[in-house]
């Protein structure tokens, strides 16, 4: 009996230890950003100082520098604008497509849906070279319109897939009844199916928006002027002047841009995971 209790306590402390280890290891870079953001430069760049403590009073200099001396706010604005436009394009194209593939096209619609999902696996690093030429031919290089055009290629496939899952779960009888009452198929779709699926649509909105904020390769390839950058490229590339790293403001920028996106994504995570694992869990 005593042996059992001993084992249980050992198991419990192991559990706490494992959680503690992973939480610290995974969250550490963000904790480290937080510390660097508010440290005075003298403190930050004195090798002998214990980096875990503040040896001088915390300062807002880095944050002020970030907001007044850099294009950080502009990058946030660019990213938000591109995010909204990409979300709009994604919804406009993927909602009807997903509905059609679930309801109107029968067995081969399903197959087409899987094919669309597979295009999600094609990475930017395979397409950025030809797309850079396409963007140049269309005269969009260096402008945020280049990424507005290209980002939906990453959001549409997964969104169609997610929405197909949602539409499948809606009983056919709802549309049938509406059509017997005189609505056309398209009206039934607009007035009944879309409102019911609002939570799925919201998931697509969050997915597409966060993907825009996370993308790096296309923005780096297509856009070179500092003022037209997206936040994910602006911070790591343009906050570094020559070889000089402004670590304080760099870390503040990372933290300020990351946290809202992380919290937003986190609150919808379970639904994305459902999309990733469709077919492999019942």
């Amino acid at each position, binding site marked *: 009996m005593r042996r059992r209790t001993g084992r249980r306590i050992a198991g419990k402390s192991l559990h706490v230890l494992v959680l503690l280890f992973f*939480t610290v290891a995974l969250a550490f*870079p963000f904790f480290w950003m937080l510390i660097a953001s508010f440290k005075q430069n003298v403190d930050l760049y004195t090798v002998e100082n214990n980096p875990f403590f503040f040896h001088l009073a915390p300062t807002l200099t880095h944050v002020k520098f970030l907001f007044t001396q850099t294009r950080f706010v502009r990058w946030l604005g660019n990213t938000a604008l591109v995010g909204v436009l990409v979300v709009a394009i994604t919804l406009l194209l993927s909602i009807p497509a997903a509905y059609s593939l679930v309801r109107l096209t029968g067995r081969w619609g399903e197959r087409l849906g899987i094919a669309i999902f597979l295009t999600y696996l094609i990475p930017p690093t395979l397409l950025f070279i030809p797309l850079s*030429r396409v963007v140049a031919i269309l005269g969009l290089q260096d402008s945020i319109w280049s990424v507005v055009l290209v980002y939906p290629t990453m959001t549409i496939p997964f969104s169609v897939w997610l929405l197909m899952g949602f539409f499948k779960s809606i009983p056919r009888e709802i549309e049938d009844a509406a059509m017997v009452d005189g609505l056309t198929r398209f009206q039934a779709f607009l007035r009944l199916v879309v409102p019911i699926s609002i939570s799925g649509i919201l998931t697509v909105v969050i997915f597409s928006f966060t993907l825009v904020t996370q993308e790096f390769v296309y923005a780096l390839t297509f856009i070179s002027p500092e003022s037209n950058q997206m936040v994910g490229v602006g911070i790591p590339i343009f906050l570094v002047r020559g070889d000089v790293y402004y670590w304080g403001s760099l870390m503040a920028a990372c933290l300020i841009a990351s946290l809202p996106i992380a919290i937003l994504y986190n609150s919808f995570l379970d639904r994305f995971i459902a999309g990733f694992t469709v077919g492999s869990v019942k």
Partner: protein
Amino acid sequence: MSSTRSRVAASGQSPLLGTAMFAPAILYIALLIGVPFVLAVLYAFSDARIGSTTFHFVGLENFRSILASPSFRQALRNSIVFTLVAQAIVIVCSNILSIALEKPFRGRGLIRLMILLPWVAPVSLGTIGWKWILDSIYSVFTWVLVSLHLFKPYSAPMWLGEPHLAMASVILVHCWRLIPFSTVIMLAGRSAIPREIPEAAAIDGAGFWRTLFQINLPMMAPILSVAVLFGIIFTFTDMTVVYILTAGGPFDSTQTLPSLAFATGIQGSDLAAGAAISLFLVPVLIAVAYLMLRVASRSEVV
């Protein structure tokens, strides 16, 4: 009779409307994924460069020259090593972590958010955080090692400046980023196992390890493979981590196929060679897509 017919008409297919509704999405995908993909293949067999609008086909010339280049062979080797090592570490760690997170406890929501941060925050920004942590002078690791008297001040290793340490750093950051993703997928897989099965096994005397290896892991096989397959894609095709952390250096020691394709095709203006390098991603993508389809169709049958 007529009511049956109207029901068939109502729930049946309408090809015209159906086509009109999915055509824009398909067209978009065809124009901006399909056409560029074909272009990538065409470029790989040509002498296309940034700045010149015409190009000629040169057959296998690009492939011959990149296969002869030491940078390319290094990049190919690195891509494979990074992907395999990172996946092995990620599977073990995320399995442990998903077991620890499975049962509800106080503060689980907050712990989950902290654990998920590496995945849900933009990768380029998290990587910059690591670049500060691994800085050649102000690294916190260096400070800890020096204060433990394991190294003398200013003689600690340069984490990103020495080939093997730089490779280890890149793998570390990939693992850091993928463990959360893999963990949540495994959590989803665990919650799908009917509770009675492990309970019955426990009654029959199966211990923790036996339940893990003979019941939980086999039952999670499909979802485990989904996590691994996505993980392979995310590591093998990633350029962000390497580009920000080391830019492929020192001396190409952390160069990967995507980062070399960028350095050659965009920074070096040699679109053709860049396209040829990135085409080496395709076999892995096809293999993953094939395996993914098999996983999906198998679990549909079950």
